[in-house]
């Protein structure tokens, strides 16, 4: 009986959600169906697609939206990741003092050598992704995650080696400050936070898009060092 009632309630909820999502069409049609909304005034998805390249000269329009039009959100998201990393370290700190270190078994020679061989290549790929974030799919978050996966490999393959926590702290501090500094220079120069104040160059060249590649590189370093720090903390727990 209870199962029947909960099934019924679930159906009602599902029906409600279906009804409102079926009516909501995201993007262009949604705007025009809402009647009063004129297309260019409100439908900014279409506007970004049509004018974004010319306004920011960044070949990857997603980068333009993430770093410029909605860059303030990105700053917040980088902060959220930073909080997660710092919070995890703070909570594990108390337990770290009690834990007794146990000796880990070393990895086999093949794994050890393979990790050392792959590590620089992974870093190179990560750097490539965030340096080309304004040209090709991917960007600071993705590149940073790839970099962090390189550090994960080192932890798995070469026991006892890893990031130095002071290095992680410096990298995440400086990259975060670099993001903010670029944004604040925009405020000082043009009166608007995150303004794209540098010469934008021609689209699809490596040096184009104004401040977008700079910010993406800063995000890449920040995300890489934060995720690396999280891996460091968790592996310290397991060690």
């Amino acid at each position, binding site marked *: 009986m209870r199962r029947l009632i909960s099934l019924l309630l679930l159906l009602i909820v599902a029906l409600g959600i279906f009804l409102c999502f079926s009516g909501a069409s995201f993007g262009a049609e949604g705007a025009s169906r809402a009647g009063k909304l004129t297309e260019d005034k409100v439908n900014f998805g279409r506007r970004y697609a049509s004018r974004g390249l010319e306004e920011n000269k960044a070949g990857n329009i997603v980068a333009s939206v993430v770093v410029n039009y909605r*860059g303030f959100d990105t700053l917040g998201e980088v902060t959220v990741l930073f909080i997660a990393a710092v919070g995890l370290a703070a909570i594990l700190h108390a337990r770290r003092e009690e834990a007794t270190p146990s000796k880990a078994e070393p990895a086999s020679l093949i794994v050890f050598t393979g990790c050392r061989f792959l590590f620089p290549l992974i870093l190179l790929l990560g750097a490539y992704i965030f340096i080309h974030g304004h040209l090709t799919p991917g960007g600071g978050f993705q590149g940073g995650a790839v970099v962090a996966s390189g550090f994960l490999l080192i932890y798995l393959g070469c026991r006892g080696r890893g990031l130095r926590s002071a290095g992680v702290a410096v990298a995440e501090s400086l990259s*975060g400050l670099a993001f903010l500094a670029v944004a604040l220079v925009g405020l000082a120069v043009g009166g608007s936070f995150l303004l794209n104040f540098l010469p934008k160059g021609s689209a699809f060249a490596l040096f184009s898009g104004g401040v977008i590649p700079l910010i993406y590189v800063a995000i890449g370093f920040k995300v890489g060092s934060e995720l690396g720090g999280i891996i460091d903390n968790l592996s310290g727990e397991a060690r």
Partner: protein
Amino acid sequence: MVSPILLIAVPLGLAFAIPVLGLASKRVPRYVPVIAMLFNLVVSVSLLPHALKAPIVVRTAGWAPPYSIHLVAGPLGVLLSSLIALIGLLVAVYGIDYIREGAKVKYQILYILMLVGATGVVLTGDIFNLFVFFEVLCISSYALVAYRGDSTGVEAGAKYLIQGAIGSGLVLIGIGLVYGTFGTLTMADIAANVSSVGSFRLFVSLAFLITGFGVEAAIFPLNGWLPDAHSSAPSSISAILSGIAIKAGLYAIARVVYTVYGASSILPFLAVLGIVTLLIGEMCAFGQEDIKRLLAFSSIGQMGLILFALALASATGISGAVFLIVSHGLAKALLFLASGYMIYRTGSRDISSLNGIGKRMPIMSLCFTVGAFSLIGLPPFVGFASKFTIVRAVLGTGSTFFITLLAIGLIGTVIEGAYFLRIVQGFYFKPAPEDSPEQTEGKVPFSALVPVGLLAVLILTIGLFPGIVGRVLGPAADDLLDRTAYVQHVMGD
């Protein structure tokens, strides 16, 4: 005039810089939150006269809304950001010596970021950006609740994390629906077009948003996490959580209901929820033996009263609600801070162990009493002025429905008076428990006396001269109620 965006950018930069500063010196990081919040307080107060003339709309990336994110520093936003900075500053001073164990450097980072999140919530004009800052606020609170790393702290943090994450998920679904319907995320743009969409879809998205934000605002029945979280956190964090963080959730609800949706038909429902929250909070507080849990339940009760006053939809009602946000923020921060050192001194959180503490810690006990009397609503403290404004507003509506609810709600205030007076009576008129060990670590340092004393002085001063805050309350209420003016300011023409 300084750009209001610095209220977010500067503390954020200081928080990012702390890891490097911490490498250079072990002592420096603990002073960084004080600097950050002092900066915010000065800037917020200097922005207040400008914001009273007209809301300051700040663009980011150089694009006009709705193409980019913007901040709207209106009277309400700047008043609340001043309150956040004021309480944040005092609690930061308190935290210099109060935090003695654990990852102290990381505590200071999380502390600043929590306040950055709250400031961002009250200043932003973009509904997705509201969500981002809300997450900044919530995630740093989860970590700070579990800061001590002991089992009760981690359990409370995990409970808070699970319920908060579900709430955030609901908010995100609500925002997704709004974006799908309107194709925009700017609150003013949505507000301008809200009448052109069928009411069913609006209702569903509004329900998602209210439920999601309601978890953080601790509205019954979404407040199961609060008593554990507020009582197991370090006292300085409890002060911020009770004084500021839950209000950010309530602000978000008010902004969405009034400015974005203009949904007046849902208000009676919110008023009933408010009174139910008030009664349940106060009744649970009455039975508590643990001082911090009692204060936490009392916060739930006060949040109910604020929600009820917000739901009155009149300028006086909202003024009263904002006034109560201010007075409860000051009083509850004071109570948590004072009880923090009392707990250090007695080594126990039991109310009975605090008996006779009036002789051993005279200043802390006196300040605690001021805070408790203000919360009950006794004149001449600020709590009286704010509760009186709410009563006047209810009588001003002349509606039987609201007057009946208020009459029921007054029972809550009576219960509140009963348990606070019982504690204060214990402080002064009951002998100390015989086997109480005198903890030497409970010696109150100067850095704790100053913020607690200042809070007590503020409560008394604003209580005697309510005009100090009163001048801003009217415009703050209009900021919330007057949708056309809000849309006009943000969108231009």
